[in-house]
């Protein structure tokens, strides 16, 4: 208690805080009075400079911050704009460039959590923004300079999955002279492309295409390919993972890597119970690919049904690639036999990009018929016919056919959730892996050092899977081409003077980042494994564990300013 009292009065006395209020164009300034907020900020204790910017994150805004740091000798910077989750790193590195310790930066969110959610309440939103700025400034006063944490890095990469995405990643990583360990659970690499006939838009044979990449990967001396192998255990952290691989019943293989790429792909849905699926007269696009590949295809009258098992309750997403696959195969059938009849029944056609639209028109030109069906009244497959109702006109139609082909979506692989637990990586409600941020970090997981490409993320075309694979290699390079790993200093620390080794924090730590050191009789934090959640700090009975950047004096100061 006495300790806390002391903290309260102990205001750092040489405070020189700069506050920057962002208009975000009209996103903030359109709904609250940014000038009034700026004026208010200038009146707060410790603030020596306050400025309103049109866009604080623009080059002009950043320059203003940097200029103010040198001209006004700022030792704290507060930016009131959008979310620290997206913009804090930019502002922090800009402060660092201008010579201020980046851990003396604080961000206040007056857009997502003020102007955008109180759009019709100009006066109240302005008042709230002032209070949020007051709280941010109060916390900033108690921030402490920190030094980033450094650790060693192993220049080796584990790629899980040997489809086109994983192979492309392995190929590119190897070309960057990194050592690659590629693990494929099947006896052969290549993924789904091993079963596919030919690829559009280029028209190359899928197996030949992927074989070329496999050969290229195999020819590299710095790639080790483990076929028929799975990952059994993973320990460690970015830069220093310890991997256990298991090949069948054989002996476990130990490997050490710095980064991990997940490229485990997806599989087409097996449409049991849908449209009378029997694998003979009612088949999937994948089975049609096999028939076309083996020359077994003979049907004269074909009906394809799109969105079979997709965009329905329980599986609401669009698989993106099935329209392309149907149009490809319909055109191929027409090329083989112009007399054949091919009907595609669809809900919406998804033929995006510059080449697929062309494919669609070519298929129409070849005589492929397209008809819309209403998802409320899906087609019925009965006695060698497909029955459906044309929406708008309401006419009931019957198409005689000798083959029905179901365009089923790509779905997550069975093993996805096991891998998700092994690597502590999240999945969406459909079992596809979730990237750290759809737009800002599309190939990263939130977990540092683990990356993602191909259909494991969502259904992708070969071109997309390949570009993601090549892209992921460069994401890995941004980590492994540094001399050492540098991570945020905002981690827990345990005061060795006051820790009594009660192990309370150790049990609480979700990341296994705390270790008991018997010789010293105390607990210590592994600063690389620590993700800075602060559970230990909340638990420690002697307050020996603290979380940097969120210490009691920092949070209490913010609370005091409410």
């Amino acid at each position, binding site marked *: 208690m006495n300790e806390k009292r002391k903290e309260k009065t102990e205001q750092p006395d040489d405070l020189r805080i700069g506050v920057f209020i962002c208009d975000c164009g009209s996103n903030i300034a359109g709904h609250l009075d940014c000038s009034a907020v700026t004026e208010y900020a200038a009146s707060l204790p410790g603030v020596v400079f306050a400025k309103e910017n049109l866009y604080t994150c623009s080059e002009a805004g950043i320059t203003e911050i940097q200029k103010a740091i040198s001209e006004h000798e700022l030792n704290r910077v507060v930016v009131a704009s959008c*979310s*620290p*989750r997206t913009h804090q790193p930019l502002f922090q590195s800009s402060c660092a460039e201008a010579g201020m310790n980046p851990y003396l930066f604080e961000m206040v*969110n007056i*857009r*997502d*959590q*003020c102007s*955008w*959610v*109180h*759009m*019709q*309440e100009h006066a*109240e*939103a302005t*008042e*709230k923004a002032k*209070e*949020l700025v007051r*709280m941010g400034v109060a916390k900033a006063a108690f921030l402490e300079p920190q030094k980033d944490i450094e650790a060693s890095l192993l220049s080796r990469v584990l790629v899980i999955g040997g489809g086109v995405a994983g192979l492309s990643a392995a190929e590119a990583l190897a070309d960057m002279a990194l050592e690659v360990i590629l693990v494929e659970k099947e006896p052969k690499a290549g993924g789904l492309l091993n079963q596919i006939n030919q690829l559009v838009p280029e028209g190359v044979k899928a197996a030949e295409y992927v074989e070329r990449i496999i050969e290229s990967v195999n020819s590299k001396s710095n790639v080790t390919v483990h076929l028929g192998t799975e990952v059994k255990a993973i320990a460690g952290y970015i830069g220093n993972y310890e991997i256990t691989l298991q090949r069948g019943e054989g002996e476990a293989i130990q490997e050490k890597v710095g980064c991990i790429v997940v490229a485990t792909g997806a599989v087409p849905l097996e449409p049991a119970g849908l449209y009378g699926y029997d694998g003979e007269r009612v088949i999937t696009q994948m089975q049609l690919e096999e028939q076309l590949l083996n020359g077994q295809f003979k049907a004269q009258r074909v009906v394809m049904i799109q969105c079979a098992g997709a965009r329905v309750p329980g599986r609401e997403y669009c698989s993106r690639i099935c329209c392309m696959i149907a149009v490809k195969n319909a055109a191929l059938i027409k090329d083989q036999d112009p007399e054949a009849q091919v009907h595609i029944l669809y809900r919406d056609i998804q033929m995006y990009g510059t080449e697929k639209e062309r494919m669609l028109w070519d298929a129409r030109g070849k005589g492929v018929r397209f008809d819309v069906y209403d998802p409320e009244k899906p087609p019925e497959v009965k006695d060698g016919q497909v029955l459906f109702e044309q929406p708008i006109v309401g006419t009931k139609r019957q198409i005689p056919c000798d083959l029905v082909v179901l365009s089923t979506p790509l779905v997550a692989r069975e093993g996805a959730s096991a891998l998700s637990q092994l690597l502590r990586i999240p999945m969406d409600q459909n079992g596809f892996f979730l990237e750290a941020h759809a737009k800002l970090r599309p190939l990263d997981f*939130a977990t540092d050092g683990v990356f993602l490409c191909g259909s494991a993320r969502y259904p992708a075309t070969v071109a997309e899977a390949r570009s993601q694979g090549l892209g992921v290699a460069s994401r890995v390079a941004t980590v492994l081409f540094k001399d050492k790993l540098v991570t945020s200093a*905002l981690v827990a620390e345990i005061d060795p003077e006051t820790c009594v080794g009660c192990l309370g924090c150790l049990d*609480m730590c*979700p990341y296994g980042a705390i270790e008991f050191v018997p010789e010293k009789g105390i607990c210590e934090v592994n600063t690389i494994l620590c*993700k*800075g*959640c*602060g*559970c230990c*700090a*909340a*638990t420690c009975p002697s307050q020996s564990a603290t*979380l940097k950047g*969120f210490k*009691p004096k920092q*949070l*209490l100061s*913010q*609370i*005091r300013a*409410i």
Partner: protein
Amino acid sequence: MNEEFNPKIVAFACNWCAYSAADLAGVSRFQYPPNIRIIRVMCSGRVNPGFILKALKMGADGVLVAG
């Protein structure tokens, strides 16, 4: 009394979920009353009872710990 009670609410929000949910509410332009003050923490597990009591003592009528 005909003056409406307008409670002051302090929310401790986890950076990774509740805080980002509040961000998402903003991006989606969900409108809600302006009487809430969000304090970002890196995990709701960081919030010990002391912080909650402090918020109540400083005049908060309600405290939300979300994570």
